[in-house]
Structure formats: C-alpha cells, structure tokens
C-alpha cells in the first residue's frame, strides 16, 4: 500500500544574503513497505523527518531522490487521484471550517471528493455513531473542545472511505478519555474495514495499544523496523517502552 525506495528530500536553507545555501537532508535513503491492512507506528524524535515523510506520502512534497508509491500511485504526480484514496489528519491543524457547523464541513467534503449522496449519508451516519459526533454535529467548530474537534477531523478524513489513513499526532493534547475513544475507533477501523493506518505520534501509549509494527526514524534514516516485541527486545534491560525508545533516540545520536 505504501512503498518508499531510497526516498530522500533535501531543502536548501539560505544563510543571510549568500546566494548558495546549505543543503539540509530532512529524509535520506528511506526505504520501507507497508502492506494493505497494516497498522504501523512511525516514531522519531522532533526533526527526524516524520512530517516530511508524510508530506511526501500525500504528494505535497516531491522527493528529491528515490521513489515513493502510495496505493500504486506516484503521490506528487497523481496527487488528485491519490487524494481520493488517502485520508490525512494533522493533529495540530484542522481541515474544518472554523465558523461553520461541523456538518457543513462534511457537506463540503462530500462535494470535494464527489461522494454519492446516499453513500455519503450512510458513511456519515456510521461515523457519527462510532465517533459519537451526534451531540455537536450542528455546533460551529470554534465552539468545540479539542477532543470533539479531533473526532470531527477524523470523520472528515474518512468520509470518502480512503484505503490508507495517515495520522500525524492525532492524540496530541487530548485527555485520557478522548485518547482512549480515538484509539478504540482507530483499532476498529483497521480491523473491521481493513484500512491501512500509518500513525505518527509522540504518545507511546498510542503505539503500545495500537501498533503491531513500529518504524523508528532518526536523522532522516530508518533506525528500526519491526514488531513491538522486537522493539522491546532491543533493550532487554529496560522495562517500559518509554525507556526503550529513549535509548534508541539517544543511542543513535
């Protein structure tokens, strides 16, 4: 479903008035494959290249080297076609219309992805039930709590029934109850509907409770790729996932 082959993305960072800038590699030689139906956690310290990877997956950044494929498509060339098959949630941002009721943002998405009216209705009813949106679907987004808004954003990303869902810190800033309801929803989505999920997070609870497979990126390269148990086995002397990951983050520096 997702395929990266030695993908790299570098940025020119200009220093003062000098014409030639320094080349910064946000991601370099990154290769991994995610099979359909997988639930993969994507970890890495701040600045490791996680968001750059995600932007390459949705086609808003073109890789400067290597190859990226999502659902068999080259994201940067087939962005529009791909958009209909991928759902993206950025936890710190929102696609919803701030001043309008939540329902109106969904209506716009129906037109944007050209979802058939009846299919849309069924899908929205389902999402309203599973994400418990009923109580605030007619409330303007600016009046929603963060947890409610996040559930709204998740629904917005799933209304067109994408095959792949890419999540960038979907539980950031949420309380334990909101977190657990979002986790439960994601687990159901993955097991019942078979949606492939790539989850980026700093909340290791998300990883422990949801991901069968974990990938860890540092300095733009893949530092670990394996199951959760294999991740824990990298540092047998550590007992918690926090300690294991801390060791990996600091050890690879």
């Amino acid at each position, binding site marked *: 479903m997702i395929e990266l082959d030695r993908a790299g993305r570098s940025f020119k960072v200009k220093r003062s008035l000098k014409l030639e800038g320094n080349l910064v590699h946000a991601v370099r030689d990154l290769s991994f494959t995610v099979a359909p139906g997988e639930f993969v956690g994507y970890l890495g310290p701040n600045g490791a290249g996680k968001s750059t990877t995600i932007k390459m997956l949705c086609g*808003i950044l073109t890789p400067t080297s290597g190859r990226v494929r999502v659902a068999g498509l080259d994201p940067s060339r087939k962005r*529009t076609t791909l958009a209909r098959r991928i759902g993206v949630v950025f936890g*710190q941002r929102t*696609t919803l219309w*701030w001043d309008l009721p939540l329902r109106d943002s969904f*209506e716009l998405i129906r037109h944007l992805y050209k979802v058939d009216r009846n299919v849309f209705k069924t899908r929205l009813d389902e999402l309203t039930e599973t994400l418990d949106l009923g109580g605030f679907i007619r409330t303007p987004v600016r009046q929603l709590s963060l947890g409610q808004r996040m559930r709204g954003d998740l629904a917005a990303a799933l209304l067109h029934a994408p095959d792949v869902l890419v999540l960038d810190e979907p539980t950031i800033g949420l309380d334990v109850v909101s977190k657990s309801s979002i986790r439960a929803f994601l687990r159901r989505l993955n097991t019942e509907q078979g949606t492939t999920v790539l989850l980026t997070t700093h909340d290791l609870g998300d990883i422990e409770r949801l991901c069968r497979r974990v990938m860890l990126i540092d300095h733009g390269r893949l530092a670990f790729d394996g199951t959760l148990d294999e991740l824990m086995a990298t540092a047998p002397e550590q007992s918690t996932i926090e300690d294991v990951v801390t060791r990996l983050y600091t050890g690879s520096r």
Partner: protein
Amino acid sequence: MCHAGARFIALRITDRKADNSRLPSADPRAGPGTAGHRAITLRRCKTIPLYALLVRYGFRKHATYVWATVAGAFTNSVFGILRAYILIALWQARPGLAGYDVTQAVTFCFITQACIGPMQLFGTGLTIPERIRSGDIALDLVRPASLQLWSLAEDLGRAAYLFFARGIPPMLLGAALFGIAHPAEPGQWLAFLAGFLAGVIVSFAWRYLVALSVCWLIDDRGVGAFSLVLTTLFSGMLLPLSLFPGILGDLARALPWAAMVQAPTDLYLGKAPVLETLAFQGCWAAVLLAAGALGTRAIRHKVVIQGG
C-alpha cells in the same frame, strides 16, 4: 472556468484509455451501460456545486461576525462623509475637474467607499499568508482542488456579503445626506454590477499574488504595505484617475488597479464605454489569475512548507 475545462480534457483522455484497456463494467464506479462520455459530463458538472458551495460558505463565514461588519460599515460611511466634504470644497474651487460635476464627485466618493470592503482595498482578506506561516497550507494543498479557484470562490462569497453589508450602507447614507447620482437605465445598473464583479475578481487575483509572495519572502508585511500604497493610489480610491496629469494619468488608467475602483465607478456614472471597460477588466483578471495559477504551481513544487 479554465480549471474545469482542463479537467474535462484530462478526464476525456484517461477515460478513453480506460475504454481501450478494459470493459466499462470493470470500473466499479461506472454504472451499467454508462458510456465513457456521459460519465465525463456528469463528473464535470459535479465540480461546479463544490465552488458554488464555497461561495455560499464564504458568505456565511463572514456573516458570522455581525458587529465587525457594523463597525466596518460605520467607518466606511463616516470616512465617506469626510471625503465628500473635501471633494465638495475641491470641486467648488475647480468646477468640472476631471470631467465630473460636484454631484458626480460626491457619487464617486461614496462608490469608492462601497468598494473598500468587497475589494479589500486596505488588506489581503485572504488567510493564505497566515496559513503559509503556520504550515496549515499543507492541508489546502492536499485537497484535490485548485487552491486558487478554491480561494476565489470563498472570496467571492466574502465580497458578496460585504457588498450588502458594507457597500450599500455608505451609498444609501451618501444619497440621503448629499444626494448622489444614479444610473438612469437598467442597462447601466447591470454594467455597473458586472464591472463591480470584475473589480472584485481583479482585486482577488492581485491579493492572491501578494499572498503567495509570503512563500518566498516569509513575511508579507512589506509587500502588503507596498500593495496598499499602489492600490489606494492607482485604483482611484484616493482621487479619480482622470485627475492624474499626462503620462502618469495614462499609465494609472492602464494598470490593473484601475480595473478595481475606477472602472466600476465610471460604469456607474456612465463615464466610460461599457464593453471596452469590461474588456479591460477582463484582460487584467485573466492576466493576474494566470500569474496566480503559475505561482500556485511554483509553490507546489518548490517551496518548503513550514512547521509541523
């Protein structure tokens, strides 16, 4: 809508390919017996409701802030009155200046005041610079829709709301206090409204370019201030452009800003040939929108999207 046209062609090509490679029924989205061509026309039509909905949402989004609008309408009206007195004094000293009589000069003043809100003469009115700075633009770029058309549709909704909320009040107040001229026949009203719409589109196209410059300059305040000076001076907002002497006047009347305030006002006053004026505005709209489309393509490919 050139974008819809482009999509139409693209779809036509892909659908033809699909026809050659597989049976139509193999496509899960095609209904039984759906000819490729009919499917295209249907999909093409479905793009229009999206942008129509965006116009409506743009209108509603701005209609949320009633008191901000009331304050805006009040300010536009009060400054209209101040400017009217200045112009009256000027036209009493120099009657027939710029080919206007006193009533026409006062009318000019209130029409230009009505343009401020819908055409956002003093500011960008677009959220793009802020979204580029915060990185939210990433979300806009993920959407399977043109960023430029999306923003245009939303901006037209905003302009429509502000036309009623901040355009009509100063004109009514001007009419009540000073007595302003009004078009004699429906055709002239129509020409004015068409020119006003064209003015809004040109203003959008210009502001969109200014907004995109943030991608390269990181900060839009410098360009914004520059744009403010150019717009107030060359749109006719400050003084009618026919007052500008010689080459400066010719230049001012040929620049895109003249398509914003001066052109619709002249259409209202019946001072300009209708078709020629609309064509002038149409040309600038096309040129600036095309530049915006190129700019959008450039940011898609080149620019670092910040944050996140």
